[in-house]
């Protein structure tokens, strides 16, 4: 009887030991798997971010930069043209002023006023006659 008890205990110890050992092993494996999967997920996210970074191409701005350069050149030409036109404008103003002054001096002459008045009257009369020539 005593032998059987000892044997049974030994067997129990054996079985329990194996059971507990396997249980602990399983738990250890689960723990390790869980945390390794967390690390793997983080690694996968990193790899995805790297792939996204490497896959994103910089936009091509060359066409726009060429357009900008062309616009600037056009503006430069336009500004030169404006400068030229303004200069021409001033010259015209000066010439107009000079001719107006000459004209005023001539028109201030009594003889001019007399003939101008005669001219205006004859021109008016001529227009009247021509209106009758055209109407009929």
């Amino acid at each position, binding site marked *: 009887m005593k*032998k059987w008890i000892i*044997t049974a205990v030994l*067997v129990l*110890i*054996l*079985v*329990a*030991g*194996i059971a507990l*050992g396997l249980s*602990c092993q399983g*738990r*250890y494996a689960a*723990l*390790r798997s869980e*945390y390794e999967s*967390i*690390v793997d*997920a*983080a690694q996968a*996210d*990193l790899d*995805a*971010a790297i792939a996204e*970074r490497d896959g*994103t191409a910089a936009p091509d*701005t060359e066409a*726009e*930069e060429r357009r*900008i350069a062309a616009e600037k050149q056009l*503006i430069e030409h*336009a500004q030169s043209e*404006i400068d030229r*036109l303004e200069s021409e*404008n001033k010259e*015209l103003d000066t010439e*107009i002023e000079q*001719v*107006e002054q000459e*004209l005023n001096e*001539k*028109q201030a002459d009594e*003889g*001019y006023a*007399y*003939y*101008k*008045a*005669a*001219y205006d*009257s*004859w*021109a008016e*009369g*001529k227009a*009247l*006659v*021509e209106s*009758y020539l055209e109407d*009929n």
Partner: protein
Amino acid sequence: MTHGRKGRLSLKAIWKTINIALVLLASAALLFCGYMYFQVETFYPDEYNARADQLRAQTQDILDEIDRQRQIQLEQQDYLSSELSSLGADGADLDRQISDLRAQNEAKTQRLEQLRQEAADAENMEQVAMEMRAEYAAAIRQLEEKINAGETDVKICYWTFDDGPSYYTQQVLDTCRENGIYVTFFTSREANSSAANDDPEVERTLLRGMITGGHAIGNHTFSHQYSKIAGNLYTKGIESFREMVQKQDEWIFECTGIKPDIFRFPGGSAWAFSSTVGKEAMLGALEELGYRWIDWSCDAYDNGIANPSAATVYANAVSQIKTLNIAMILSHDWNVNTVQGFARAVPALKDMGYIFLPLFSDSWTIDNTTILFS
């Protein structure tokens, strides 16, 4: 080993062996269990968490970098778009400025050309005025031809005033200006004595007023002395006649700067041609001096002793003129009734379709006027 009868192992030995094996196995199991338990108990997730955190941090850095790059690209795009838009607006603005400046310059160039033309005309205003006068005369000639051809309903009244300028000449000029009409003055320096023509400056002003008013001035001789007893026009020979024509010619030119080229005989051609000077001689003198002569077709009957009222002058004029498509009426601006009758007659004749024009030497009427009323 205790062997039983003849060398067989005893049960007790076998049982002992089994127990020993069980002990060994149980020990091993306990060791295994203990080892695994130790593994479990000593499992530290910190390393994994740290590694995962490190990886997440790297991932976040990369994501942040991606965001920054995108932001930079967006800003760059925005900048380029904004720059383009701004340049475009600037360019459009400059184009408008250029367009405005070109329009201004064109307008100023035209203005300059116009001013230069005016200055040139002003320099040659006399010539320009005389050219316009010639064009005016040509247009009147055309209209006369149309009237004679029956191609128009308009009619012409050549209203002439003889013997002036006089005290009332300015009233005639005023009436003409108010009505927009033109007349002809056959002037004589000494035809009548009045404040107007006694003062040469007053007469000069009136003669120039005739020109600036668009009227015609004719020569009616300097003296107007056609009396068969004491006159110097038709009784003292051709030289006296020529002298009187030439003096008046020079007087008109001196006052107006324009040489007259139409002439009316004081007393009319019938009176003149019946004189001793002779028609051919007088016509020769007039041609040499550059004149064409004319009588009249209608008469206001305002000369002489009759001295009709303004109403009578008006009635005379209207009743005679309306019988003609082109009428030439004789009157005298030294008669106040004539001047007033004229002012009444003008609107009435205009209503009848008459226009009042000055007489020029190339008028058809010069050669085709006969006295119908006198």
